[in-house]
C-alpha cells in the first residue's frame, strides 16, 4: 500500500509546525514518539504509519486555528475520531498532522419536540442513544463499533449497521453540521429543519472520508423506540433457498428492521464462541427482525415464517422474550471476534451486490478459496445486499498477507462485475483506493476529484485516501476527458 511520499521540506519544518500548533492548542499537541504511537493505525490494522504530530483541539475555534496554520504552512491533515475505520480512513501520514476530535465530546442540546440531538463530533454513537434512552428514544444507525466509534467518524464514513435497511445510513439521519474548511473557515449547513437549502453539501460531506472538511458539530434525528421487536432464526439447506426467501420477503412488501444471513463457517464460528443455540446442521441462517406495535410484529412474523416455509426452510424459531431476541443477535454481532479465534488474522470485506447475484457470488468465493489457498466465512446484510466475507490468514506465514489482499481484491472486482459496488458501509479509505477504477472511469473520478478542489484546492485534507491518483486541482481543471479516459493515462499511481 503506497502512500504519498513525505515532503522533506515539511519534515524539515517540523519544529516550526510544532511551535505554531502549541500556540493554538497549548495543552493538546502530542510530540513524543511513545504517545504518537497510539495514533499510528486505525481498525485496518494491516497498515500503520507514525504521524509527524498529533493535535487534540477542544473547541471549534481551536480546530479552525489548527487548520489555518496547516493550510498556511502547506501541512497535510488527517482527521481522526475514535480510529475505528475499517478502511484505513484515519491512517496517518509521515509528514502530516493527525487532528484528533476526541476532546470535542459534549452533547449540546436534546430537543424532543423537534426530535433532534445536537452534539460535538467526538461523542460516541452509542452515547447519543443513551442520552435519550430514558425518554424512549434512540439514534438509529448502529455500526457494530457503536460503543467506541464517534458521530464525527460516522459522518465521515456514512456508517451503516444492521438496521439501516429500514432506518437508513448516517446520511439519512443527519440534519445539520458545522464544519471547518482546510482554510479555517467555519460553515454551518442545515439545522433542525428537515431539508437544508441550496446545494446538498450535507449530503456530500457525509461519507466524504475526511477529504472535504472537519466536522465540529452535528445535529441528528432521533426516533421513538419501537414498542416490540422480535427476531426469527431461520435455517436453510442451501444459500440459494436463503437468498430466495430474502427476495420473497421484500417481494411481499415487508421491510424488516434487520435481515442478516450467515453461511456455515460463520454459523459454526459464532456458535462455538457464544453458544446461543444456532442450528449447526444448516448451510445458511437468516436472522429477521420485525419491530413495531405487537399487532404488527405478530402479523409480519407469521407472514415471514410462512414465506420461509414455502421456500423450503428447514428450521425456524421466533424469539419469545427480549433476552432470547438478544441471544439470537449475540452470535451475529460476535461473528467477527468469533472468526478471529479461528485465525490469527482476517480481512473483513464490504462489497454490495444485487441480491439476486448472491448464489453465484458465493459459488465463486468457493473457487477463490482453492485458488488463493485461504478460507472465508460470510456474514451478509441480506436485506440490502451488503456482503462481508471474512478472509482468514496468518500474517506470520510468508506470503499469506499478500494472498489475502489479492483474494480481497478479487472479491471486490467480482462485486463490481455482477453490478454491485466496492463498499457498502466501510468506506474506500486506503483499502479499496486502488480498486476505484474498477467501478469508475477516469472521467467519473475526475468529477469527484474536482468536487474536492472546491473544498480543498491544495489537497491537504487526508490525501492518499479514496482516489488512486493524486491530481493537482489546476491540472484537473485543464484536463479534458475523452470517452471516460483522461489524456494522460500514464500518470504514476501510488
Amino acid at each position, binding site marked *: 500500500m503506497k502512500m504519498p511520499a513525505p515532503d522533506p521540506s515539511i519534515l524539515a519544518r517540523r519544529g516550526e509546525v510544532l511551535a505554531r500548533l502549541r500556540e493554538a492548542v497549548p495543552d493538546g499537541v502530542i510530540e513524543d514518539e511513545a504517545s504518537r504511537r497510539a495514533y499510528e493505525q486505525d481498525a485496518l490494522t494491516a497498515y500503520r504509519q507514525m504521524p509527524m504530530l498529533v493535535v487534540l483541539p477542544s473547541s471549534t475555534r481551536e480546530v479552525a486555528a489548527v487548520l489555518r496554520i496547516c493550510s498556511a504552512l502547506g501541512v497535510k491533515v488527517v482527521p481522526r475520531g475514535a480510529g475505528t475505520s475499517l478502511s484505513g480512513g484515519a491512517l496517518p501520514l509521515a509528514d502530516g498532522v493527525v487532528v484528533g476530535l476526541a476532546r470535542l465530546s459534549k452533547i449540546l442540546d436534546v430537543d424532543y419536540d423537534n426530535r433532534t440531538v445536537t452534539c460535538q463530533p467526538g461523542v460516541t454513537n452509542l452515547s447519543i442513544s443513551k442520552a435519550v434512552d430514558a425518554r424512549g428514544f434512540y439514534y438509529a444507525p448502529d455500526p457494530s463499533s457503536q460503543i467506541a466509534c464517534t458521530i464525527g467518524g460516522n459522518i465521515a464514513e456514512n456508517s451503516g449497521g444492521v438496521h439501516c435497511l429500514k432506518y437508513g445510513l448516517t446520511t439519512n439521519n443527519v440534519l445539520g453540521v458545522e464544519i471547518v474548511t482546510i482554510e479555517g473557515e467555519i460553515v454551518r449547513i442545515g439545522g433542525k429543519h428537515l431539508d437544508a437549502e441550496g446545494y446538498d453539501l450535507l449530503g456530500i460531506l457525509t461519507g466524504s472520508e475526511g477529504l472535504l472538511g472537519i466536522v465540529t458539530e452535528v445535529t441528528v434525528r432521533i426516533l421513538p423506540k419501537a414498542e416490540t421487536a422480535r427476531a426469527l432464526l431461520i435455517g436453510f439447506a442451501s444459500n440459494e433457498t436463503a437468498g430466495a426467501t430474502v427476495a420473497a420477503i421484500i417481494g411481499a412488501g415487508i421491510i424488516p428492521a434487520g435481515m442478516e444471513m450467515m453461511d456455515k463457517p460463520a454459523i459454526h464460528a459464532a456458535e462455538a464462541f457464544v453458544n446461543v443455540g444456532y442450528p449447526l446442521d444448516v448451510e445458511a441462517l437468516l436472522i429477521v427482525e420485525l419491530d*413495531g406495535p405487537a399487532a404488527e410484529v405478530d402479523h409480519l412474523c407469521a407472514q415471514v415464517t410462512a414465506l420461509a416455509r414455502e421456500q423450503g426452510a428447514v428450521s425456524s424459531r421466533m424469539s419469545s422474550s427480549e433476552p432470547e431476541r438478544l441471544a439470537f443477535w449475540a452470535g451475529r454481532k460476535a461473528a467477527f471476534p468469533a472468526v478471529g479465534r479461528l485465525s490469527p488474522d482476517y480481512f473483513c470485506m464490504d462489497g*454490495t451486490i444485487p441480491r439476486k447475484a448472491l448464489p453465484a457470488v458465493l459459488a465463486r468465493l468457493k473457487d477463490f478459496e482453492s485458488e488463493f489457498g485461504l478460507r472465508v466465512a460470510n456474514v451478509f446484510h441480506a436485506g440490502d*445486499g451488503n456482503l462481508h466475507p471474512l478472509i482468514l490468514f496468518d500474517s506470520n506465514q510468508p506470503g499469506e498477507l499478500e494472498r489475502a489482499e489479492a483474494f480481497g481484491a478479487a472479491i471486490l472486482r467480482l462485486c463490481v462485475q455482477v453490478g454491485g459496488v466496492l463498499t457498502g458501509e466501510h468506506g474506500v479509505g486506503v483499502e479499496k483506493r486502488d480498486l476505484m477504477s474498477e467501478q469508475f472511469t477516469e472521467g467519473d473520478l475526475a468529477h469527484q476529484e474536482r468536487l474536492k478542489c*472546491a473544498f480543498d484546492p491544495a489537497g491537504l485534507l487526508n490525501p492518499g485516501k479514496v482516489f488512486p491518483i493524486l491530481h493537482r486541482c489546476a491540472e484537473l481543471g485543464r484536463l479534458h476527458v475523452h470517452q471516460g479516459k483522461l489524456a494522460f493515462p500514464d500518470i504514476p499511481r501510488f
Partner: protein
Amino acid sequence: MNAGEALDVVGAGTRRGVGRPVDAPHVLDVSALRGVVDYEPEELILTALPGTSLAEIESLLDARKQCLAFEPPHLTGSGTLGGAVSTGLSGPRRLKAGAVRDHVLGFSAASGRGELFKAGGKVVKNVTGYDLPKLITGSYGTLAVLTELTIKVLPAQEDTRTLIVGGQTAGDAVRTMANVLQSTADVSAACYLPRDISVPGTATHGAATAFRFEGVTPSVEFRLSRLRHQLASAGSIAILDLEGSLHFWRAIRDVVPFAEDSARCLWRISVPPARGAEVLAKIQTSLPGSRAFLDWGGGLIWLQSPGEADVAGTLACEQKIRSAVAQSGGHATLVRAPADVRRNVSVFQPQATALAALSKRVKLQFDPKRVLNPGRMYADV
C-alpha cells in the same frame, strides 16, 4: 450555437416556474430522454431516463405494489423523474420515509464541461466515492444534465387511514403533532389546515389537524384507535378511510388548496417543526391577508401572499418572511411568482458568505463557464 453560450435545460416544464428565470439564448429540451431501463422490484431499484414521466413510473410501480416513498408533488401536471430529482421537492412522507435525496442511488450525466460521467450505483447501499447523487438532487440542473437515474423504490402501503382532530389553533396543533411524533403512533404524515383552508372533496369542519397511518391493516387499526383515545379531549375526531386518505394526502402533496389562485405568490418555508406555529404567527401578523397551512408536523409552511404578485409587494413580503425565519432557523423559497418577480426577488434563501462561496466553487467545478441554467438558483451561480 457558439461555445460558452448558456442553456436553459427543460424536461416536461412542469417545474419551470420554480427558481429564477434563466437568461439563456438556447433551450436544451431533454424530454425525449424517456423510458424505463430496468426495474427490479425485489432489488428495490428502478433505472430510467430522466425524461420519463412520473405518472408512467408510478403506474409501473403500482402494478407491483411499490411506490416512490418520497411522494414527489405533481405541481402543474405530473412532470418527469428528472424534474422531480432536480427540484428535490418531497411530499408529506418526508417525516418518516425521508426526502427525494434519500432515494436517489445513482446517475449518469453530462457536466457543464460537456463530459459524461456517472456516480453512485445501482444497489441500495453504497458508500463508494462522494455521494454525488445527493448533490445533483435539488441542484435545478445547474451542475449537469442528467442522462440516466437509478432510484430506490419501496413497497406500497397495504392500508392507509387518517385521523383528523377538528377545531385546534395552529399553536395547539403544532403541540399535538409534536406529541404524536414523539409517541409510537408511527404516523407517516402530520399536517394542519386552519379554518379558512380545506381540501376540496374532503369534509372538514373548521380547522383540521390530520395524521396519516400507513402499514398492514392490523397495525393501522391498532395505532389509529389508540391515538383516537389519547386525543379524545383535544377536539372533535373524524376518520378518513383508504380512499378518503389517498385523496386528502395527494391534495396536501400537490398544494391543492393554493393551486387555483395562481396570481398570488406561493412560498415554501422550512423550519424546525416545533416552531412552525410561532413562525407562521410572526409572518401573518406582519402580512395580514396571507393564508397558510402546515405540513411535516409543523416543519413545512405553505404560504400564499396577500395581494397581487408585483415586484415591490413581493420584496416587502420577502423581507418579513426572511426576518421571521432568521429567528427560528430554516429557509424560505418563492415557489410561484411571475417571471419578473422571480428575477428581482431572491427566490432561494440567501446563504451566509462562507456557504455561498463554497456553493459557487462547487458550481464552477462542474460548470466552469456557467452554461447550465445560469442564475436559476442564485444570480451569480
